């Protein structure tokens, strides 16, 4: 085992080879995605596809891991910040950047071993999950939210593992038609899309733990589906009651034999 990974040798004697061969797509390199990129870089993931259309702004510096004041001044692409962060940790890691909306590059996602969705909207989550299911790619979604409550604010968030063949985000009640319909209304109440570094970090860490359990499990109690709820006011991460109620049920939204692949695949000569 590579000396760099000795302290994580409990992940298995083949873990550095497995993680080094892993192809991970991160959609959204903002507050959550930048944490994930950094942690996966440390963990030894060897192949990254980084997708984000945005550039660094001053208002990102409260949470964007790896971004500097100079990046904000120069309006550096967020994918460049992430690739710089990853290659600063592991110069051999392949970090491909796609500076645009993920829908423009959806064909690139299919080759991934896993997709992390760190996006702002329910619509993006909905479409990412459909794409992932269609090409049998596990999808890990993270997001945080701030609501005004009596006497202050409530900081919350979620980490969901949507595994092909298992419960989806609709089954878990996280995606609903009324939420999709009301997307245009800003669902946060503490200003435009409130985000803080510690909540993003807690959620990203939980998501990276879910990923690591999938690829290099270090204990026997694996879960097919994960729905973790983050309570940022009590600093706790717990399994959602909704998941506990739904365990053992079949997903009706993506049945086992649902449509897979391209609707019209044309064999090309390469």
């Amino acid at each position: 085992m590579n000396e760099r990974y000795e302290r994580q040798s409990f992940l298995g004697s083949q873990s550095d080879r497995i993680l080094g061969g892993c192809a991970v797509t991160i959609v959204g390199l903002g507050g959550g995605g930048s944490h994930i990129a950094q942690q996966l870089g440390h963990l030894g993931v060897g192949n990254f596809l980084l997708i984000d259309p945005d550039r660094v702004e001053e208002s990102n510096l409260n949470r964007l891991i790896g971004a500097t004041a100079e990046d904000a001044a120069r309006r550096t692409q967020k994918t460049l910040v992430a690739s710089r962060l990853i290659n600063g940790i592991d110069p051999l890691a392949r970090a491909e950047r796609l500076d645009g909306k993920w829908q423009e590059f959806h064909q690139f996602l299919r080759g991934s071993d896993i997709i992390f969705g760190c996006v702002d909207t329910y619509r993006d989550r909905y479409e990412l999950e459909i794409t992932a299911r269609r090409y049998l790619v596990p999808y890990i979604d993270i997001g945080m939210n701030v609501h005004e409550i009596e006497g202050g604010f409530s900081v919350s968030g979620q980490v969901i593992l949507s595994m092909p063949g298992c419960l989806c985000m609709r089954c878990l009640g996280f995606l609903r038609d009324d939420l999709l319909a009301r997307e245009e209304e800003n669902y946060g109440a503490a200003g435009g899309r409130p985000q803080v570094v510690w909540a993003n970090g807690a959620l990203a860490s939980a998501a990276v733990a879910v990923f690591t359990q999938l690829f290099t499990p270090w204990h026997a109690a694996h879960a097919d589906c994960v729905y973790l709820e983050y309570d940022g006011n009590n600093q706790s991460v717990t399994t959602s009651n909704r998941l506990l109620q739904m365990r053992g049920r079949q997903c009706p939204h993506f049945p086992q034999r649902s449509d897979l692949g391209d609707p019209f695949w044309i064999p090309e000569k390469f």
Partner: protein
Amino acid sequence: MRVAFKITRSLLGRAFDDLRRSHPFAAERVGFFSCRVGALKPSGWVVLAHDFHSVADDDYLRDRTVGAMMGPAAIRKAMQFTLSNEVCMFHVHIHEHRGQPWFSGTDLRETAQFVPDFWHVRPHLVHGAVVLSLDSAAALCWHPQYSKPFRFSDFSVVGTPMSVTRSPNEREIRETKFLR
């Protein structure tokens, strides 16, 4: 170019349960995965296993020279399913050992004969063969525009835990995985 195969852990488990049953006279069982395909960027395709199709006991031939010999009815049923459902078809059987499996000489000879026959019913799709070991897999894929089959770059079992068997030429795959 990358050629990938993906299957859910539950579907693979169903195939294992069927293929490891004893047969009245054949030494082993065979079956088919019906699959769909997606294009990969920058080049290549991913084969996505959709369902498993058992070969009925009566559709085996008595042949002591091989572990299992399918009769014409087994192939005819698989071809009919391909035609009716517009799916790729991958023959599958198990080698009862651990570690990376590979096709025997007989496997290669027989599959090279019958797999291209699926182009008679679905000429614009890829078809192929999968060999499973107890903890790994290998697959070959016939593409309508190439005479020789492609070896899969990686074989992914999607579920908990995830398992990805990479081709021995891992470095080459790593270098082309996300290139445009």
